[in-house]
């Protein structure tokens, strides 16, 4: 039973590998900007902060086809930015796997930012003040104090982003379509199987596979967070200046 479950057809295998590839690059792509935006929102006050906050969080509350459609308009081959990207650099995003990465990055970004912002705001700013008084400039304070102490939250954010990307459907299918081997990730493959006669069995196999992947990702993030938290244990104190 289990053996037949894991006996994938080449098409299923392609969907699995593509999903992992897209999720991996999505996570890599949002790592740095996610931490940067989270830090801005957690530690800085500036004009337009609530606008930035709303923009970042929009994909969470919109139907995913809306960001997908907007991406198509902006980054499609005839789109404002897409046309320029194509002409200047020969980069095509629409209907390619890189476009799928962009779509899931947009959708996963708010999750990453939320997790990291929470983690950074919980780092005792008194420790940052102490580091400054010892001669560390703001950049060094960030990399030697803030960032290491926010690592558990960053891991959570990355894992959430990875899982979100594995499950991305609406924005992906709207922006890059459902092309086997190019943009047909696991959810798209499941959807495709449910649309054809006799597709229930392969759909079921991919559903179970998705469950296992999501579960594994969550377990892994739990373990990493616990380990990171143990390393950072012993932080107390309160903020004054």
């Amino acid at each position: 039973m289990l053996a037949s479950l894991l006996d994938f057809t080449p098409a299923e295998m392609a969907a699995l590998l593509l999903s992992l590839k897209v999720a991996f690059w999505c996570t890599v792509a949002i790592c740095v900007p996610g931490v940067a935006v989270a830090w801005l929102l957690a530690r800085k006050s500036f004009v337009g902060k609530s606008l930035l906050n709303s923009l970042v969080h929009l994909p969470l509350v919109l139907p995913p086809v809306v960001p997908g459609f907007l991406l198509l308009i902006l980054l499609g081959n005839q789109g404002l930015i897409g046309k320029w990207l194509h002409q200047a650099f020969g980069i095509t995003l629409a209907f390619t796997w890189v476009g799928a990465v962009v779509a899931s990055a947009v959708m996963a970004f708010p999750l990453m930012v939320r997790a990291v912002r929470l983690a950074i705001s919980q780092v005792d700013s008194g420790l940052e003040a102490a580091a400054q008084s010892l001669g560390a400039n703001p950049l060094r304070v960030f990399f030697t104090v803030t960032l290491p102490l926010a690592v558990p939250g960053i891991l959570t954010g990355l894992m959430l982003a990875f899982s979100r990307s594995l499950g991305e459907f609406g924005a992906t299918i709207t922006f890059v379509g459902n092309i086997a081997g190019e943009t047909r990730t696991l959810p798209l493959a499941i959807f495709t199987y449910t649309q054809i006669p006799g597709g229930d069995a392969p759909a079921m196999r991919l559903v179970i596979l998705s469950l296992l992947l999501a579960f594994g990702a969550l377990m892994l993030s739990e373990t990493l967070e616990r380990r990171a938290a143990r390393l950072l244990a012993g932080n107390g104190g309160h903020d004054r200046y």
Partner: protein
Amino acid sequence: MIDIDLHLHRGSFALDAKLRINQPVVGLFGPSGSGKSTLLGTLAGLIKPDGGRFAVDGDCLFDAAQGIDLPAHQRRIGLVFQDSRLFPHLSVRSNLVYGLDLLRKQQRRLDLANIVELLEIGHMLKQHPHQLSGGERQRVALGRALLASPRLLLLDEPLAALDTRLKNQILPFLRRVKEHTQIPMIYVSHAINEVLHLTQTMAIIEGGSILAHGDFHEVIKDDRVLSLAHSLGMDNVINAAVSEHNSEFGYTLAEHNGHQLLLPYFDVPLGAAISISIPATNIALARTRQVGITIQNQLPGVITAIRQVDHRVLVSVNIGCLVIAEVTAKAVHDLGLAPGQQVYCLIKAQAMRYLGASAN
């Protein structure tokens, strides 16, 4: 030479601090909410004042008129906080060298080995802060701040979170730091005896302003300062040298200005210089030497001042150094006490608290 003239408004609170310091260690003394921490924050560059000027040894760190505002990380002003603020993710050793590593070779005035020896923290270098006791953490925090070779060290109630026993363990280290490093210090506290253990020089702050600054016994001539000091618990600190131990009768003798003080027995080497704290309320006065009394210490002296604070009276007596005894107005009246009179200060051995060795 530290030149402070800073002001700042935050809601109903106003800081207006003018202070010029020439002494190596100054105790900044004031009640909660008087602006002590705010002042330290502005000195360190962590809080931006509205205006004024601040210079250390001629180097201007802040001058609103000239638009100078050196960022905190370029000021080289060390801070030791009440809550130690050690970096939890770094080992004790990495914490200690955090600031040291950022200095150029020629800026380093102390090295790790000196500080480790001075503060006796060698055995914990590989540990992490959460494995240390509160007192050990403060020693490491002190070492970390010193190793950054600050031009000025600010200590913000570094002992406030510790119990009495731990305080007594740390005070001698502070004393050693003062004697060995020559780094100027501003020591914030609302415990008079802590400050007196380190220095006689005090600046008194209340409501954001410096009320007075100078020798403790001079500044408390100001009635506002006296009533403030009194409300926070008037305390005397006497430095003495251990001259004899008697384990049979459970006492230790210490010599101070030709007087012998009898203290409860405690274990320090003969000849050691110690500091003893005596609350003003624990000193009684008598016109003549008493006989048939359990009080072991009767120190002759001359009354230099009598001042009333609220319903109590504080009597300053010169016994070789100034001590302050708190008595009732009735007692002053009944005994006919007046400045210039010879009196005996009666102090129970048990009323004296050992504050730790004051020098090597």
